[in-house]
């Protein structure tokens, strides 16, 4: 449907452009015509870029008016409420100029000069070119204005004292458009531009320090703020590094959400549904080339435990989890943990099962979920939520079991870990 809407919008612009062009031509005043056509093309290109940046993901509430903001982002610094970015003059950005928009995206400053909180990922968006920023602005200004005032941020002291952001910026922010690395291919550079800039992958796939700053562009993975999800490292083979994947397989995961050895779940599934599945073949290919090239980071998270011989009591403990596995999981994931490739993921050797952080595995058992519906996978198979059936202790047993069966080795999970994964934020 979204795709359809998108196509429809795109084609209506093209029609409008042609129509306008005809009228202008008929009236024999060709002066404005080239400029106007460029404006339309620019907005169409901007619509695509806005998709790539998944702006709608944050600037829309569930079921709300697109781009009218109001979504609450809960962080350890308080709750940020995303603003309305439709061209409404009173409640949106209807009074903004191209320059104002550039200042926000590139410098992290609002129209009135106020410093923006980095919950808006200008730390990444600063890499976007002026040309792309202008196109994005043209698209946003072409949207129907929505009059919607959103609640104000609810940020804790002392973070609510905005001038402190100047210090934060001095420490962690450097404005600057992406600069091509001549030692790499054009494809690689395009991928890097998208991943580091507009795609703002680093906003989730990195560890944030106590002041909420992502430490580098290395995509080394981290707990997602305000969510019970861990965004795995994209530069470690032990987590979600794709150095040994083929480009086709990386492309497939990014656009369909499922491959023979991996399934996107949680926030990543949402990113694929809202954004990545609409990327052009060239762009997603470029991203794959870049992601594949990220070298393994040796200091990345390694599985928490390494033991070759299990004690008798440990074996008995895991056997309890094994019994639960047999009862609830085996029909889909198989007695050998190999699953049904492309449908039900294998658990044997599955990196998201054996990662140091067990939160994603716990989350999946508790809440279940479906991969995103995409053009290539319109009717996905799903995982049931077991929260309603299993107690915390049982979830801990079964997750401990899958982390240590079929040659998997990872730390055990306790009922306390499971309990911590419940509640707010999903």
């Amino acid at each position, binding site marked *: *449907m979204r795709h359809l809407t998108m196509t429809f919008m795109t084609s209506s612009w093209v029609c409008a452009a042609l129509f306008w062009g005809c009228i202008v031509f008929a009236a024999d005043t060709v002066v404005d015509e080239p400029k106007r056509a460029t404006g339309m093309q620019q907005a169409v290109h901007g619509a695509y870029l806005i998709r790539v940046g998944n702006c709608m993901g944050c600037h829309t509430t569930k079921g709300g008016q697109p781009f009218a903001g109001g979504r609450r982002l809960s962080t350890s610094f308080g709750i940020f409420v995303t603003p309305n970015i439709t061209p409404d003059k009173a409640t949106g950005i209807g009074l903004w100029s191209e320059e104002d928009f550039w200042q926000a995206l590139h410098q992290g400053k609002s129209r009135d000069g106020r410093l923006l909180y980095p919950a808006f990922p200008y730390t990444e968006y600063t890499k976007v070119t002026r040309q792309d920023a202008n196109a994005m602005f043209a698209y946003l200004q072409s949207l129907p204005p929505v009059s919607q005032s959103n609640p104000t941020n609810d940020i804790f002291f002392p973070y609510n004292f905005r001038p402190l952001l100047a210090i934060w910026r001095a420490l962690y922010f450097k404005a600057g458009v992406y600069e091509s690395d001549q030692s790499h291919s054009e494809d690689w550079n395009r991928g890097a531009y998208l991943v580091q800039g507009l795609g703002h992958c680093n906003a989730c796939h990195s560890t944030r320090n106590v002041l909420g700053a992502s430490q580098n562009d290395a995509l080394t993975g981290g707990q997602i703020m305000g969510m019970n999800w861990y965004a795995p490292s994209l530069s470690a083979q032990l987590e979600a590094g794709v150095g040994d994947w083929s480009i086709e397989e990386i492309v497939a995961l990014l656009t369909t959400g499922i491959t023979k050895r991996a399934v996107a779940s949680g926030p990543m599934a949402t990113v694929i549904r809202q954004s990545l599945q609409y990327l052009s073949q060239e762009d997603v290919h470029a991203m794959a080339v870049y992601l594949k090239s990220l070298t393994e980071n040796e200091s990345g998270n390694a599985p928490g435990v390494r033991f070759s011989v299990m004690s008798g009591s440990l074996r008995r403990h895991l056997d309890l989890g094994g019994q639960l596995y047999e009862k609830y999981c085996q029909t889909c994931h198989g007695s050998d943990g190999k699953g049904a490739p492309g449908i039900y993921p294998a658990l044997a050797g599955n990196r998201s099962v054996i990662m140091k952080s067990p939160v994603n595995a716990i989350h999946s058992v508790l*809440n279940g979920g479906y991969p995103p519906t995409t053009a290539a996978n319109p009717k*996905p*198979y*799903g995982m049931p939520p077991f929260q*309603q059936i299993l107690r915390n202790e049982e979830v801990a047993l079964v997750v401990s079991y899958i982390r240590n069966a079929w040659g998997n080795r990872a730390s055990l999970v306790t009922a306390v870990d499971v309990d911590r994964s419940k509640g707010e934020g999903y």
Partner: protein
Amino acid sequence: MLRFILSIFFCITAIANAYGGTPVVVPDTMAERVKACTICHGAEDKAGRDAYYPRIAGKTQGYLFNQLRNFRDARRYYQPMAILLENMSDEYLLEIAQYFSSLQLPYPAPEQIHMQSEEIKLAERLVYSGRQEKNIPACSACHGDNLMGVEPAIPSLLGLSRAYITAQLGGWRNGGIMRSQPSDCMSKIAKQLTDEEVNAIAKWLASQSVSGEPSPSHILLPELAHRCSQNILENGGTK
């Protein structure tokens, strides 16, 4: 000799199975795709930890489709459903609604609930006649004479547990099951009901037995359709 070869073959197969496990065969069916739903809404686990989860088999398609979208888009709030549906397209949700709507499962025996005859009278009056003076229509006026719902988007009221019915009516009385639309017609109706009436209706509905495969009706009075247009429109009540 042949016997020997065969027995060796079977031995090898058995060993291979013991070590390699049996491969998972996944049927290409809707039943397989909605296993995540039937773990709570299905027959097997319903008697499990609680009997709260409502029957969805045989409910009108439009009703199911609207509810699926309401859960996904946070108009009706229940986190486990919201998580499951988060990344599903309208097309797929419609297919899921079609599947459950056409699914015919036998109705379980009704709950055994003791009711005083006064209470039964009260419930029956509300269900079949309503209360004009408080602008409460009869349940049957919208949900069908047999209370099995009305096509395309009004749900059946039978085959649900007392806990579920009470919780829904309670939700509506406290400002609406549907977030951000507190004034839908069921909310207005439920707010007119007393505690006593809510209890009587929930007990009575949960204790009705359903036999055979009764189907939803197709008749709805225009004024009631208008009153509840927000709930029964194809767009699920969005603006």
